[in-house]
């Protein structure tokens, strides 16, 4: 079952996360986390998509 936006409220704190990522600029892997973003006082745009090697 899909429940878009379940548990997510605008104007409230985003769910904490830390995930692995590929950084094309450094051509290396690194972690990205909400805490690192807020510690660095940076805006974050999360852009979800279904899958690599498809036709985004």
């Amino acid at each position, binding site marked *: *079952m*899909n*429940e*878009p*936006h*379940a*548990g*997510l*409220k*605008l*104007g*409230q*704190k*985003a*769910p904490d*996360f830390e*995930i*692995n*990522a*590929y*950084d*094309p*600029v450094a051509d290396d*892997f*690194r972690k*990205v986390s*909400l805490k690192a*973003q*807020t510690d*660095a*006082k*940076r*805006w*974050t*745009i*999360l*852009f*979800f*998509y*279904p*899958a*690599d*090697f498809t036709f*985004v």
Partner: protein
Amino acid sequence: MGADIVTVSTDTEFVHLAWRKSEKELQSVRYLMGADPTGNLARAFGVYDEDTGLALRGTFIISPEGTVLNSEVNFYNLGRNVDELMRKFKANIYMARKTGEVCPSKWKDEGDKTLSPSARMVGKVHEALQG
């Protein structure tokens, strides 16, 4: 003010690397490509499709304080408009600086008409937008 775009799918970071390097359309890509193979991040943002194991096309703008300010979710078959995403993003940055102002639907960029809601504007939004 700095911002980072993080794209996220349920692929691993290794697949992101391989895709970035093999697909010529992605040669200019500089944003971080996040890996969510468990789907936990997509689930936390309500965009995980349990039937397919994939993430729907969800976009979320998070402020430097960690607050979610925008959400937009499209089903698989509808792409996102980057101009509209940038409009929302710029509006958020503007309103973070000018906390008394709000950006109407036609606001596109700094210098465009904003509104400063007050008791005097009630019922007079049309006039305020003209002014």
